[in-house]
């Protein structure tokens, strides 16, 4: 435990560096025609390089909305958002796609792998979109699949893999472009306890290797392993503290 605390301290950047994620007064309003729903009512959030942040909260609290905004899958209705120092507000759809490709790696609850192509090809996709040359791609994909322990399953299709293995493929895919941040939305939600623990272990390894992680979860067991827990309720952050204090 203490080693992780030390790590957190170590990875806290010097005052001069900009945080990976910097949100100021973020608002998000969904216009559903008759009713306007304010999903986020002014959120301030800073995430430094090397942090492992768990975002928790009941359903409908706005945590999925927050995740979409952090991942540049959606744009805020108000406030300022910088990812890696780059201003996100006002970017076009294609520019957002580019930011996602370079800066964010996604891990979804439902894996979202394309079912009919191999693990290798799934992991390769972001590299293709990012215009990485084929030779570099092949080496990178092989290295990543080795890293998540699926070096011998590269040619398997997702349907031929277990849930835990599929999520490992998804994690490898998230890391493909060396993103600034890995964003995981309920990564253990579709897994049994054993596989869930297993995937949790993969995330902890990533963190120890220096990745910046944001995990959205209501699995408190997973949240407690993070360095920091952000609790959101009714579109506002109600608590933001180191993990140990949440226990």
């Amino acid at each position, binding site marked *: 435990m203490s080693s992780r605390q030390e790590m957190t301290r170590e990875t806290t950047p010097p005052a001069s560096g900009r945080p990976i994620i910097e949100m100021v007064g973020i608002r998000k309003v969904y216009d559903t025609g008759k009713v306007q729903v304010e999903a986020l009512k002014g959120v301030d959030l800073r995430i430094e390089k090397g942090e492992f942040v768990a975002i928790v909260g009941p359903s409908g609290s706005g945590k999925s909305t927050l995740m*979409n905004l952090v*991942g540049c*899958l*959606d744009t805020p209705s108000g406030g300022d958002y910088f990812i890696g120092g780059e201003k996100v507000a006002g970017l076009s*759809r*294609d520019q957002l*796609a*580019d930011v*996602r*490709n*370079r800066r964010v790696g*996604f891990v*979804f609850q*439902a894996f*979202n*792998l*394309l*079912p*009919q*192509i191999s693990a290798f*090809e799934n992991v390769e*996709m*972001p590299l*293709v*979109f*990012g215009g990485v040359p*084929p030779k570099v791609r092949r080496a990178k994909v092989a290295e990543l699949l080795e890293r998540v322990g699926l070096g011998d399953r590269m040619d398997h299709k997702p349907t031929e893999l277990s849930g835990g293995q599929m999520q490992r493929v998804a994690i490898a*895919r998230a890391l493909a*472009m060396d993103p600034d941040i890995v964003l995981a939305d309920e990564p253990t939600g579709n897994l049994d306890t054993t596989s869930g623990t297993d995937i949790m272990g993969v995330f902890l390894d990533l963190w120890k290797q220096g990745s910046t992680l944001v995990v959205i979860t209501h699995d408190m067991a997973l949240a407690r392993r993070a360095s920091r827990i952000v609790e959101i309720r009714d579109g506002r952050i109600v608590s933001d503290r180191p993990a140990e204090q949440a226990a």
Partner: protein
Amino acid sequence: MLRDALLQLHRDLKSQKLRTLLTVFGLVWGTVAVTLLLAFGAGLKKNLIKQTAGLGDRICISWPGLTSIPYQGLGKGRRVRITDEDLETVRPRVDGLKRMSSEYTDGWKMVYNLKTYPVDVSGVSPEFAEMRNLIPVPGGRFLNPLDVSHQRRVVFLGNKVAEDIFGKGTDPVGKTVLFNGSPFLVIGVLTAKQQDSSYNSRDSDLAWIPGTTFRALTGRKYLSNFVFQPASALESKAVTESLRAALSRRLKFDPADKEAFSVWDTTEQFQFFEVFMLAFSLFLGIVGSLTLVVGGIGVSNIMNVIVDERTKEIGVKMALGAKSGAILRQFVVETMIVTAIGGAVGFAISLGICAVFPSSLQEFVGKPEVSPAVALITTGILGVIGFLAGFFPARSASRLDPVVAMKM
């Protein structure tokens, strides 16, 4: 870059095997149905024309006669005599005249292997074959322009003449026969044909030589009769009148003198036939279009069924950083390739079916003729339908938020 795009395409087609297969199948099915329908239609039409046109393909046969009306101080009862030069002179003045050939006829003695056979011989020009449906048995040919200009001694034999002289098993092409003592090279034999009317003799009993050769050997100057073909059967009356007028000016007889120049218009029976064929083509066109619509519905249904699947896929790709333009561009290329494959396979299958179509049935319905243009157009239309059916859902999907698209 291109290699990358192709690789990506290959991967995508592979990733959607069922979708690709079904789409290709829909395209193949539609192409085969329409192509075969029209192929059999064209074959049947040709066969009908061939059977009805034993004597000739919408031709008029005309004989010069004696004038029956005094004209410009010249008395009646004059013989109208026409030369090749007359025909060539009036030819450009007659609108709607497609082909024309003079014909010099006589009964000759033909000698082969010391045996003598009486044969009716016609001196004609190469155009004669098209007009009178004289089709050579493979391995031989009809008269050509060089035979005419060089006055070659070559002969094209009616199938019965050839059989009488050479027997059944021998190929007469390349053999030499004697006509009135002059050697003639046999260059071709007529394919047996149905013929329900004739003048002089049946074609199976005739022999044709170049008109120039005929004239050189006999010293004949004036043709026995001539054959012409209007561009369309419906124009035969006008063409005949125009030709009569042109000849009457040159040869000085009254244009109204029917006896100076008599015409057998065989197109009369074709006039009904052309209306019938028009109706038949229209019928095929309608059935073909309906088949195409059914095929199009099939293809677009497949595209629609897979919209959800595609939407999710597009959502995932966008989340991973694919730009909407790239997604749509890829969709366009994908559709084009799938369409090309479907069309090619459909065309090949149509060709295959026509190739194995039993020849015993061809006698009745003709030989089906696959038209590459029809296959191309059919595939094109189906491709466009499929493309439109797939493009709009794909475009809406690419405009959705990736998160929404992924949850479809």
